[in-house]
């Protein structure tokens, strides 16, 4: 945000803050050790608010849980902003000093009264008001979010809506205050840092910036295409158009993990050539023309990863990779050699040192220093720099360092996969504590807590629809239909169903999910699917329609 894609604060600041909002994040289960820091803060007196359609284990620790309707986060954020402004609680000094575009923002949020926000979100007005006042009055406050914010068709707008709140109250750029996306994978942040984003070069330099490109080209001795590349969703569109005929997949399982999975599988099958590099023979790898067996880099090779507080840390080799598996870096190195570019002896530290020469924010991070300091938080421009626990302190400087931070007014748009009489139930997805994504890794150990992949319904819906725990039912969306057992979970409420994606083999959740995706970030909308649930009728012809579940509006 404001030029660098990373959370602004350190975990330590979460312990030292006064108010924490976990928005669309069940950190208790999906980021358990981050939640330890949250709880340290809570035990020191910080108030915790959880915004989540489900009454998650995270929300059970909260001083306030706001059971928002799936996909209405912008309405809630705008409503909170409107209440803060109406109550005169905005940080006027910070707004004047460090931001721009406030007037437009204030105009845009004006219609989001408590009443209207309550209508759009399903959250009672007093709870919205309480949170608005608590956030604005807190001396230090943190907003943290996860995929509940970003796996939507309007993911980027969701994020802007939250950043707007931080700007409104001056809750950014100071120790203890900040805005933090909690990264879902160990190197999501590092991938971004390294330029594994179609419009960025390492260090968040723009691909379309000629001068930057020239700098990289001189070191890389190659020509970098001057235009932005495709992100994942665009790639699938390109496959659909026939513009993308060959795909090299590294450590990703799109055949299972993509929303509207049958469609994705069909496109993958239609490719001329598919190369998959993975540590498992995933469902995607099974479709490949060539499979590169990869080592598990986290324990079978050397390198670095970057965490959600921008801390670059070393991974190290503890095991010999099995069989012919090779580290990703060596596979790429070898591929380059076979394609006629000999990069010399492969080495993680060599690659890293080259990166340090190109990305100023990493320059000070030698392997030696990373080892000695237990990781370093970027930016770290030189070898005497201690790293940066929090970002954007410049906004508070007098005179302000750099350009003002802009408010980005965003309007609420309801989920594209609309609820109606035919698809009356909102399905949302998420992860469990003991499992991880498509389960190819976590399926490998025996968790005593593992839940059978199921369609989770609240007791009221299960009773109303006449389903017993464990009963197999037909779940259908506009894209497809699957069978799944019903499980009852009291964290849900009428009209809201939940599934995980941990085991496509048991229940192929992503057959249902919406293929809508965010034009700004390319992330798909896994969180808001309209479904209907029916008894698996013996006579399929006479399909027994279940009474429509009331939507929560």
């Amino acid at each position, binding site marked *: 945000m404001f030029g660098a894609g990373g959370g602004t604060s350190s975990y330590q600041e979460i312990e030292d803050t006064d108010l924490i909002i976990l928005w669309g994040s069940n950190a*208790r289960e999906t980021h358990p050790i981050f939640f330890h820091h949250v709880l340290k803060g*809570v035990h020191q*007196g910080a*108030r*915790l608010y959880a915004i989540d359609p489900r*009454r998650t*284990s*995270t*929300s*059970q*620790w*909260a*001083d*306030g*849980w*706001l*059971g928002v309707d799936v996909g209405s986060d912008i309405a809630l954020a705008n409503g909170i902003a409107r209440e803060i402004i109406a109550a005169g609680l905005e940080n006027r000094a910070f707004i004047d000093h460090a931001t721009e575009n406030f007037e437009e923002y204030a105009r845009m949020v004006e219609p989001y009264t408590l009443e209207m926000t309550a209508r759009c979100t*399903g*959250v*009672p007005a*007093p*709870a919205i008001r309480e949170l608005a006042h608590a956030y604005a009055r807190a001396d230090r406050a943190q907003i943290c979010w996860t995929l509940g914010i970003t796996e939507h068709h309007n993911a980027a707008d969701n994020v802007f809506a939250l950043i707007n709140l931080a700007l409104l109250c001056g809750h950014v750029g100071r120790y203890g205050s900040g805005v933090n996306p909690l990264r879902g994978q160990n190197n999501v942040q590092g991938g971004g840092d390294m330029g594994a984003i179609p419009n960025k070069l390492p260090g968040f330099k723009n691909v379309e910036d000629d001068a930057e490109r020239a700098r990289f080209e001189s070191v890389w001795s190659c020509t970098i295409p001057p235009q932005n590349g495709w992100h994942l969703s665009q790639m699938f569109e390109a496959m659909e158009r026939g513009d993308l005929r060959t795909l090299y997949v590294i450590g990703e399982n799109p055949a299972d993990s993509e929303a509207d999975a049958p469609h994705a599988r069909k496109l993958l099958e239609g490719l001329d050539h598919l190369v998959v590099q993975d540590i498992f023979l995933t469902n995607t790898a099974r479709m490949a023309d060539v499979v590169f067996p990869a080592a598990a880099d986290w324990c079978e090779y050397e390198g670095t990863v970057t965490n959600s507080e921008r801390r670059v840390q070393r991974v190290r080799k503890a095991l010999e990779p099995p069989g012919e598996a090779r580290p990703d870096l060596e596979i790429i190195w070898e591929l380059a050699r076979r394609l006629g570019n000999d990069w010399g002896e492969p080495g993680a530290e060599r690659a890293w040192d080259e990166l340090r020469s190109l990305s100023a924010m990493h320059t000070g991070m030698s392997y030696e220093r990373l080892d000695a300091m237990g990781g370093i938080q970027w930016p770290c421009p030189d070898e005497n720099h201690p790293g940066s626990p929090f970002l954007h302190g410049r906004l508070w400087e007098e005179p302000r360092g750099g350009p003002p931070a802009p408010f980005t007014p965003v309007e609420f748009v309801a989920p594209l996969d609309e609820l109606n009489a035919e698809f009356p139930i909102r399905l949302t997805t998420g992860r469990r504590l003991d499992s991880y994504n498509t389960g190819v890794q976590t399926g490998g150990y025996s968790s005593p807590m593992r839940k059978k992949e199921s369609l989770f319904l609240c007791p009221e819906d299960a009773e109303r629809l006449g389903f017993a725990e464990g009963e197999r039912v037909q779940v259908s969306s506009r894209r497809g239909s699957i069978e799944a057992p019903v499980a009852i979970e009291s964290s849900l*409420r009428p009209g809201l169903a939940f599934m995980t994606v941990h085991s496509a083999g048991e229940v192929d959740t992503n057959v249902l999910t919406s293929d809508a995706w965010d034009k700004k970030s390319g992330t798909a909308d896994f969180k808001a699917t309209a479904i209907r649930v029916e008894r698996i009728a013996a006579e399929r012809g006479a399909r027994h329609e279940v009474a429509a579940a009331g939507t929560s509006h």
Partner: protein
Amino acid sequence: MDLRLRGSDPTPAERATVDLFLLSSGVSEQANGRAANTGHEARAHRHLLLPALHSLQDEIGWISEGALSYVCERLTVPPADAYGVASFYALFSLRPRPPLVAHVCDDIVCMKKGAEDIIATLQDKLGPESSEEGAATWLRSPCLGQCERAPALLWQRAGSDDRSHAPASSEAVGRLLADGLFDAPERGTAPQTETPRDPRLRLLRRIGLVDPTDLDDYRGHGGYSALRRAVRLGPEGIARELADSKLMGRGGAAFPIGAKWDAVAKAPVRPHYVICNADESEPGTFKDRILMEEDPFALIEAVTIAGYATGAERGYIYIRGEYPLATHRLEDAIAQARARGMLGGNVMGEDFVFDIELRRGAGAYICGEETALMNSIEGFRGEPRNKPPFPTQVGLFGKPTAINNVETLFNVLEVLAEGGPAFAGIGTKDSTGTKLFCLTGAIAKPGLYELEFGATLRELLDLAGGVTEGATIQAILLGGAAGTFIDTSDLDLPLTFEATRAASASLGSGVVHILDESSDISAVLLRIAAFMRDESCGQCVPCRVGTVRQEEALQRIVAGRKNASGQDDVALLADLVRVMSDASICGLGFTAGVAVKSALERGLLTPQGSNS
């Protein structure tokens, strides 16, 4: 808090019991809609855990898993934690129990007064100890604090109030089990308050004269004049009077109370709390029980003065769970005081806020230790905290707290009645005022006695009519299970803090237990050793394991058996006593070996069947 409950449900009766208790405590049910609060506020109810468990034990007779789980859900307490707390207290049962339970005291006083006969009767009628079925069962109990009228029982009755039963007898117990009729509670025994009444009484001045159930009668006997005086003096004036009085705490540590209150009054951290430690559990002790049963308003007044003097708006009286009558009297007295504006938002019209909450212990001697008591109030296991920090800085709920026992607080009324300097003139230079003694054993008139500090043991015995006719004193246990043995050569020992300290003894809780020639001192020592082991909280190694090893070694010595390892058990005991007194966390550990040590030093321990 993301509690995980195991899914066992409470019965309707259990649910109703908990609901009723929580309703009376102002805890509302969490609505489960589109917004919820299960944060700090929900977690702040933990201090209600012990009373909630009491409500179940009282009404249902035991605490089932479903019931505990429901308490956890309503109070936002993790079930493992609640189980840890419930299983800490001897009066709570986590297994099914018949609705009527006889807790039979077999401690040092009752054991000589026929406790085993009663146990034999119960065993005969009800079968073995602690059965889960039937209409009634029985359990052995440590001292029940009814020692002046031993032997004693406590009847725990599901669905109705508990009853003390003393003096009990095999016949009375048999009759009661047959007809289910309980005698009305009797007055405690304080011979000086009987005719002819001893004119020197101070702490016992109203005992036997005042109606303990009537606030107005208390006022008619001078009640609440001390509070009026206190308000005139102001907190600093009270501190001055207390300092001048040289009043020392009667809880064993003999800490000057003026300094303690002053420290709390001046502590910058708010709020402040006051606590009355009424968890009188030292075997052989019953003085606080009689004070609370017979003069409960005096305690309410004294605690109110403590609150006013220290700037506390809330006081707790923590009374031991085995005192049903005293509990009842205090509950009633608090209610009357509230109704008359002597507690509440504008106490006595003097524009200060103070109220008292009564908390019951549940069968844990350790909760008489001040920091264990605080943990117990807060809803945790009654494990003592390390000191420092002292409660005056970090006490109840982590806030500055003045904690005093019942006898000390009664003395405060005396100080305010006559002024600090006058009070300092009573007793000796370093032990001012009067002292209560619990006289039991081979004595003509067992009971509660009050004497000016400085009186000798002989004078005390004379006051009680001397030893039982025909008996000769073998030894005297001074101070209770954590006390020391002395003998007839010490009869002229002045009963003061300084003189007993000089004699390596301690007044402790004022227990004076006379053992005559017919007393089996080995059995007394074994009972004390077993008591210490039973009552160790288990937190620190020296006490947790040391009390076990002490009992084992003592058993071998008494049985005249050699230690299989070839070790000398007397030396072993000396090592154990030393580590317990040096390295334990709290006073229980420090004193767990004191009685054994003193018996060894005085040669009172004689192996059975030994020829020497």
